[in-house]
C-alpha cells in the first residue's frame, strides 16, 4: 500500500474512507467542540474503532493497515493481574517520530482500550490503567514515521474487570 508523503493520520483515514466522509468529519470537528485543542488536534473521536469486537478490524479501522512486531517497544504489564478492573500498563519506545500509541485487549468486549495522539515534542511514553475482562494478550500499536509497529504481552487475570 502506498502512503501519501507526509500524510497525517487524519489525512490517510479520510482518503481511506472516501470523499463521502470528508464532509462528515469536517462537520464533527466543527460541532463536536469549538475548542482550540480539539480544532488543533484536527481529528475526531474514532467511534467505530472503539466499538469493534475484533482486534484486527479495530486496528484496520483506526489505521487502515496492519502492524509489524518491533523489539524497540517496551510494554510493561503485570504477568498476573489479581484485579482485572485496574491493570497498570505502560509503554515506551525508542522508535523515532511517534505520532500515536494505541492499546488493544483482544479478549475484551470492545477490543480497543485507548488511543493516544502524540504531538511533536511529546515523548513516546504512556502509562495508564485498563480493565481486562479475562486473561488476554495486551497489544500496543505504535505509529512511527508513518509505519505501524506492535508489541504484545499476555496478562493472566484472576478476577475479571468487565463481566460483573
Amino acid at each position, binding site marked *: 500500500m502506498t502512503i501519501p508523503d507526509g500524510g497525517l493520520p487524519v489525512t490517510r483515514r479520510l482518503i481511506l474512507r472516501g470523499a463521502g466522509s470528508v464532509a462528515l468529519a469536517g462537520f464533527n470537528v466543527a460541532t463536536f*467542540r469549538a475548542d482550540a485543542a480539539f480544532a488543533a*488536534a484536527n*481529528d475526531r473521536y*474514532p467511534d467505530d474503532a472503539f466499538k469493534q469486537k475484533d482486534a484486527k478490524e479495530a486496528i484496520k479501522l483506526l489505521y487502515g493497515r496492519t502492524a509489524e512486531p518491533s523489539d524497540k517497544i517496551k510494554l510493561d504489564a503485570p504477568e498476573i493481574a489479581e484485579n482485572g478492573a485496574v491493570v497498570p500498563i505502560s509503554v515506551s519506545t525508542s522508535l523515532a517520530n511517534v505520532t500515536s500509541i494505541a492499546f488493544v485487549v483482544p479478549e475484551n468486549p470492545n477490543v480497543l482500550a*485507548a488511543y493516544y495522539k502524540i504531538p511533536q515534542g511529546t515523548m513516546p511514553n504512556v502509562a495508564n490503567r*485498563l480493565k481486562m475482562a479475562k486473561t488476554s494478550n495486551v497489544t500496543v500499536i505504535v505509529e512511527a514515521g508513518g509505519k505501524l509497529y506492535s508489541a504484545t504481552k499476555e496478562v493472566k487475570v484472576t478476577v475479571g474487570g*468487565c*463481566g460483573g
Partner: protein
Amino acid sequence: MASSIRVRAIANGETTDVQTLIQHPMDSGFIKDDKGEFIPAHFIQVLTFEHNDRPVFIADWGTAVSKDPYVKFTFKGGAKGDDLKVSWIDNKGETDTATFKIQ
C-alpha cells in the same frame, strides 16, 4: 463543585512529567447492577492537555479504561509556573476543564 481533575505536572529541565487522575465512573455498559440491569455506558471519550495553547497530549478512550482513570506522559519543554490546561468530554456530553501550574 470541586474539579474532577487532579494533575501533578513537574518540570525537569528539558521535559515535563504529567500525571493525571480524574474522578469518573467509566461505566463500560457491560456490568449489571444489583437488580440485574445493565448500567449504561458512561465513559470519558476525549481528554486533552494544552501547554501554552498547544496540544501536548490527546487521549481517546474507550470503555476499557479503569474507573477514576490515571494517565502519565512526558513532553519536551514546560517551565515552572507555566499553565497546563486539561479538558475532558464523555459519551453523555458532560465536560470538565481545569488549568494547573507546572511545578
